[in-house]
């Protein structure tokens, strides 16, 4: 078993049992920030995350990298509690604090949480509906009925996703008529339509060709104007290109978390260095 990693760079708060008042919206980085404190996560009897501590700053792109099966997706999926779906999945220790609130508290409504923490999946998966209906799905779910509001949100979301020019003339067309890259950008538009604070992306480009990938990457860097982005990626070039900060994970542990340039230029941990140099991948 790997020894618990030394605390990453700086603003890591002490794990668990930490009085919640320590993270009040008063601190400068508190807005939109996610802080993971001493998180242990299990799939049934199998532990997938070991004492993870992480502070994700607002309006930045944070990348999670690491070898396959190290728990990147698991950690990401803890941020919007989509893991709740999986039978037996549970947290045995620690907290995930978003906007000053531990989202695993009993009084947290997951639907409200997920409206503020959007997610884009690896495989682009638009619903079998029109482009328009795809984008406004979350708004309709939230009970928005007024057409002007929906129209406005749709246009804004598509513009954010850099898809407006390509689709403005065929909003009523079925989303399945789009190309792969367009579909993934549609999924991003769909996720940002309710204007969440955080956008989680699990390998958003791995099903795309290089050109579509570049487009989506460009988009991701733009997204930080409005959102805090957390992205899981297997592609280290991609992490270098899009991420402000990078976290390296290994066997369920967070090994190192720092500026992307530090991680790729002068990693402090041996494991990180080995991975970056391609020993694991």
């Amino acid at each position, binding site marked *: 078993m790997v020894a618990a990693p030394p605390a990453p760079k700086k603003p890591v708060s002490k794990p668990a049992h930490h009085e919640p008042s320590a993270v009040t919206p008063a601190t400068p980085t508190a807005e939109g920030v996610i802080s993971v404190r001493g998180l242990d996560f299990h799939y049934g009897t199998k532990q997938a995350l070991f004492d993870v501590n992480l502070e994700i700053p607002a309006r930045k792109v944070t990348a999670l990298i690491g070898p396959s099966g190290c728990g990147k997706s698991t950690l990401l999926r803890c941020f*919007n509690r*989509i893991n709740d*779906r999986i*039978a037996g999945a549970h947290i045995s220790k620690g907290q995930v604090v978003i906007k000053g609130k531990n989202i695993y508290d009993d009084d947290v409504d997951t*639907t*409200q949480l*997920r*409206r503020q923490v*959007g*997610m884009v*999946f690896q*495989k682009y*998966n638009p*619903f*079998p*509906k029109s482009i328009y209906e795809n984008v406004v*799905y*979350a708004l*309709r*779910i*939230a009970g928005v009925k007024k057409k002007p509001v929906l129209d406005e949100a749709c246009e804004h979301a598509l513009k954010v996703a850099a898809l407006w020019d390509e689709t403005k003339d065929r909003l009523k067309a*079925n989303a*399945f008529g789009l190309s792969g890259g367009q579909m993934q950008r549609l*999924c991003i538009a*769909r*996720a940002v339509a*309710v204007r969440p604070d955080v956008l989680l992306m699990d390998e958003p480009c791995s099903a795309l060709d290089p050109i579509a990938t570049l487009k989506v990457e460009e988009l991701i860097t733009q997204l930080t104007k409005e959102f805090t982005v957390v992205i899981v990626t297997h592609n280290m070039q991609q992490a270098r290109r899009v991420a402000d900060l990078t976290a390296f994970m290994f066997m369920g542990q967070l090994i190192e978390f720092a500026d992307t340039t530090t991680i790729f230029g002068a990693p402090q941990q041996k494991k990180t260095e080995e991975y970056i140099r391609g020993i694991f991948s």
Partner: protein
Amino acid sequence: MHAPVDPSPGGAAPHPFAKPKTHRETYEFLIRQVLRAGTYSVLLAVGLIFAHIIIKGVPVVFTTKAPFINTNFLTKLPETLHVIEDKQGKIYETSPQGSDVIKKELGGNMRSEKTISYSGGGILGPIVGTALLVLVCMVVALFLGIASAIYLSEYASHGKFIEGVRLAILNLAGVPSVVFGLFGLGIFVLSAPVLTDTPHERSLFSIPLGFTYMSFQGWDTCVLSGAFTLAFVILPVIITASEECLRAVPQGFRETSLALGATRWQTIWRTVLPFAMPGILTSSILGIARAAGETAPIMFTAALAFKDKLPWQGDSGFFGIFTQSVQALPYHIYTIAARIPQSEYSERAQYGSVFVFLVLVLMFAITSVLLRRKLRAKYQW
């Protein structure tokens, strides 16, 4: 280890792809012929059944003169057929009223008169009855079936209990349909609750509600009782098929919808069901075609061998379509084929009914295919 080996041991190998000299080929050939023979015999049987029904039924339903369709057969209620023969050997087929007129005309010229029950007139009563039974059954079965399929596959956590429920549902499919008939008689006809001011004396018990009574006295022999019974006959098919269709919906859709802040029901209603519905409807319609053909479940619960009124012509008016007993095609066929003395006249009525029934079922099948196409086009995937 992997050095080239002589491909056909014991024989000269002219080239590396030479066939090995074994019986495998003969064996393959035999298997193929057996499978083919099986398929063709099924085809033959189906062909013979259809040919038989068409050859015997078409002359009854269609005519050689315009409008080429025997409208009487499709638009009149069944009645007793009177066949009168005069002394010259001329034969008159007529209704009970018509027979008096003809007898008077012929006077002493009449040689004989035969009556054949149920074989005169038309089969409008049975057609209407079957249509009503099937429609109500469809609504009930789809509602109950889809609801339980959703519960089983989307809500219930997997475990021994749910497996047991599934097994029970599957076993339901093996219960003989006459048992369903008796079940329907006991539950729907004799003890289902009704709201009434004057509870029947055979009521099991009645609960006073203040303004009226809820009396467990059954719904009587009526469309509703029959349709509910039929619904239970086909529920296993519908539940199993619906569960399969729900399972075929990609998990990604559910996850995406939940990640967008939808509740579980919103996800099911807006994403899962639209996707699964075409499949559910197609497989259900086949089950419903089976319900249309069932005789035993409706014998005790809804159908009469003979009725001279359409359901809405009774005292209860329009709602008679739910509360009146009816005639039904399969039961009518059974009655004519097995419950009355056979003659060329009864056989005619019998095959006419069978043919009409076959056409109805065919229409169901076509509807299901068209419906699926339409829904598919709407939700292209």
